[in-house]
């Protein structure tokens, strides 16, 4: 079995594979990464730090691009969606 890490997305516990990014944790938690200006739910899109759709709050720091941050044990991820 591959190693897993436990993180929390909007309070819910999610097990992600080691090496997963926060953006992946958001998708696995079936959460949305943000709500757009017009109120649409959005998810990670480009996966490479360009589109900013996956921005969320990580361990209290806002506006982090989830796809550029590796999950650490007990990481606290808050998405808007």
């Amino acid at each position, binding site marked *: 079995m591959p190693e897993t890490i436990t993180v929390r997305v909007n309070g819910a516990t999610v097990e992600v594979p080691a090496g997963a990014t926060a953006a*992946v944790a958001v998708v*696995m938690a079936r959460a949305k990464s943000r709500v757009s200006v*017009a109120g649409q739910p959005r998810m990670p*899109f480009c996966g490479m730090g*360009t*589109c900013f759709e996956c921005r969320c709050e990580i361990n209290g720091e806002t*506006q982090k691009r989830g*796809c550029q941050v590796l999950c650490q044990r007990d990481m606290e991820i808050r998405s808007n969606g």
Partner: protein
Amino acid sequence: MASTRLHFDVVVIGGGPAGIAAAVTASKSGATVALVDDNPGVGGQIWRGEAQTASTPDAADWFFRLRHSPVQVIAGARVFHLESGKLAAESDRGVLDVSYRDLILATGARELFLPFPGWTLPNVFGAGGLQALMKTGLPVRGKRIVIAGTGPLLFAVASYARKQGAKVLAVCEQTSFQKMARFATATARTAEKMKDALRFAWELRGIPHWTNCWPVAAIGRDDLERVRLSHNGRIRELECDYLACGFHLIPNLELPKYAGCAIANGFVQVDDFQRTSLPHIYCAGEPTSIGGLEMALVEGQIAGHAATRNENAARRLFAERAACARFAAALRSAFEFRPELKFLADPDTFICRCEDVGFERVRQYGSWREAKLHTRCGMGPCQGRVCGSAAEFLFGWHIDSVRPPVFAVQCASLAMVSAASNLNGPKLNGGPQ
């Protein structure tokens, strides 16, 4: 927030194949070299996450050389300002204030995304986007996936998804069968590309590959439920869990433009030694032409040699680069966009995903600048990286200005740099501000 001062003879920005090759090559001369990348690890997009487990001998070889070189890898650092002999980057450890003698820009490419109705729905990803998410842990076992758009990347994504246990329903390529066939013949002339082609043919056996096929709508209430495709003039629909859609690659020109490097026909202008129009600034890989992995590696090596004044060693690689350029030319003609792709969006389809600005609102303006000023299109956190590139194709606009900071960063980082530097604009060419 802390600030750290560093100095290197050569700084390479971008840790993909071109950047790795440039850094390793430059370090062989005894120069001190740093390799700076925005991502948490090096490898770029094509070798993402492969530092430990490389997928090809080429990747394994270059990661080995990098590990055994004195190159200082600085990952997770976003370069947001450049000026003569200096750059500023934001990282989790604070602001890095880095000075250098020579700079090699190996900023790579990103996918081009073209708007179509429903492209903002959850579970619609970029093609490389889904690839990146899978490579960073997203499980796709049992997921029904449609892969669409254009370019050879679609095969790579399909193959990877299938290996992860996904059910790939179709690979939809907008170009014609004739053009694909010509591309296959052209690439079959090099052993390396032929091997790739045969591998993909085997790995993708049984998956429909449709040419003359492109997405016209992604449909679903809350999440994606199905995708509507135009295929050989007919409309067909596929129910699926994920749609991965990307329209080949466009160069990341923000930093070269910000530095003031001359751009010609959408690419950074370089001479035989990968020198840009500015002294001490080199460029290698996709920003000079979309040429693929081998081209990036050879350009990176040439830049690494040139930046450390080993012109003869650089010259010995010119023939190899010329061979790669033939592949780049084949790529260009094979995956040329059909005009229908300009008319996929409905009037209210968002062009700008950051500010939610619709197609019709943007279209009525005469230029990118005007559209920005009136609609806020391109003024969100991605700074037009998605919609600006789409607008260039859709409306034929020229995206001229890149403003500081070249990347959205925290105010504290800006304050750190503006105390010491002029943040009004790049100063590398000494021209008027």
